[in-house]
């Protein structure tokens, strides 16, 4: 699944560790989500969306 986390994180000048701390997950998890290796659960996706004040669809894009 594609996502805009890297861009959104860069806009805020956050490191992956910062993002992980905001989400309450490990840096490894933040990295795996950002690089599309791991699709977050729905609660975590909502948490990410709330963090960036966006909708899930604005952050994540399904790949057919």
């Amino acid at each position, binding site marked *: 699944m*594609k*996502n805009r986390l890297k861009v959104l994180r860069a806009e805020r000048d956050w490191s992956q560790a910062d993002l992980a701390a905001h989400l309450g997950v*490990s840096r490894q*998890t933040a990295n*795996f989500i950002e*690089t*599309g290796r*791991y699709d977050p*659960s729905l609660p*975590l996706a909502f948490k990410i969306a709330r963090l960036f004040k966006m909708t899930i669809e604005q952050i994540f894009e399904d790949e057919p």
Partner: protein
Amino acid sequence: MENPCGKLVPHWVGFGALFVALALPNVLTNGIGTTTPVRIAIAIGLIALVWYLARRRDRWFQQQDELSQRLHLESLASAFIGTFLLFVTYWLLQVSGLFPPLNGMYFVLIMISLRNLGADGALQRLMGRKASE
């Protein structure tokens, strides 16, 4: 919706019933073994230690994030299936007379080893997924 089964039969009751189902037929068939109070005390101490470690591991699991929990669950699944296959294979070869009876301690060691291999395998599978930018 909350699962009502947890209220009807607490886990410890189910576990106790399974233990009785395991031990009772064996005791009724073979009788109680020869032992001493010291050996029983040592066994109870070790049982308490194992239960404490298992509870601590459970609490650790609950505190992990969802990716860590997924990796842990995948590794447990690998350990369960791998241990089952290894021991059924050994047991059948033992029944055929090829191998001697196996010490139960190997069961624990094999399961722990397979859990660690499973955790590594699950992580490698995720690492191998195509990264999307």
